[in-house]
């Protein structure tokens, strides 16, 4: 128990420090702060998914991302979401890109941002976008984006878009 508490404390302190750091660099770097964290997330996604199974199926790829996170002890729970009036989980936009809504519940970024009252949808949130982009790029061989549709207090809704 003591070991778990120690690990949680370490994670918390690191994340709180990250939140403070990102909030601090945003006014200085402007849009560059988001690019920096996005790039860091993408690199992490690429590294983590280097040995992942390759697939072109979006659902399988998302499942693979989940497995990668679990294998690396990242508790970043997310689940696909289908609104009632939408027929399929995966839809296509006007550009022919595949899209899927994801709900993020337990997120260490949100948990640390809210702890010190930092705003959501900032540069640190872009790290998750980068992670998905990097991981899906490796798994599917296609460019991906993770747009924040809604940043809530208890859950966030994001739109995953994959080319082709």
């Amino acid at each position, binding site marked *: 128990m003591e070991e778990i508490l120690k690990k949680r*404390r370490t994670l*918390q*302190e690191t*994340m*709180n*420090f990250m939140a*403070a*750091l990102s909030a*601090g660099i945003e006014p200085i770097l402007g849009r560059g702060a988001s690019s920096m964290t996005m790039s860091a997330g993408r690199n992490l996604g690429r590294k983590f998914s280097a040995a992942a199974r390759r697939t072109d199926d979006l659902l399988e790829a998302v499942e693979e991302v989940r497995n990668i996170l679990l294998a690396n002890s990242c508790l970043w729970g997310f689940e696909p*979401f289908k*609104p*009632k*009036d939408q027929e399929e989980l995966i839809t296509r936009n006007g550009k022919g890109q595949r899209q899927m809504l994801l*709900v993020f*519940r*337990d*997120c260490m970024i*949100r*948990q*640390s941002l*809210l*702890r*010190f009252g930092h705003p959501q949808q900032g540069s640190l949130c872009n790290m998750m976008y980068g992670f998905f982009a990097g991981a899906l790029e490796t798994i599917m061989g296609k460019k991906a984006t993770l747009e924040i*549709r*809604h940043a*809530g*207090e*208890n*859950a*966030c*809704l994001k739109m995953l878009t994959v080319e082709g």
Partner: protein
Amino acid sequence: MLEMTINDKACRGCQLCLDVCPTQCFSFDVNTSKARVAILENCIGCLSCAFICPSGAISHKHHHEVKNFYRNIEFSLRMERFL
């Protein structure tokens, strides 16, 4: 199964919940000038509606509640230098 209720007596009909909900769970009853839960299945449990409601009329049950990081006094004292 997630439950969401709006206290009719508390609802002022400001429609902030309709504006903030990302999945259009709510509708507005023009006759009573109050918000209604229209599509509960669409609720993702973000709780933004409950947080934004000025009269605290919206409540949720059986939802996944995220435990935010707790306050660590020792760490906060160290962080004060950076914030």
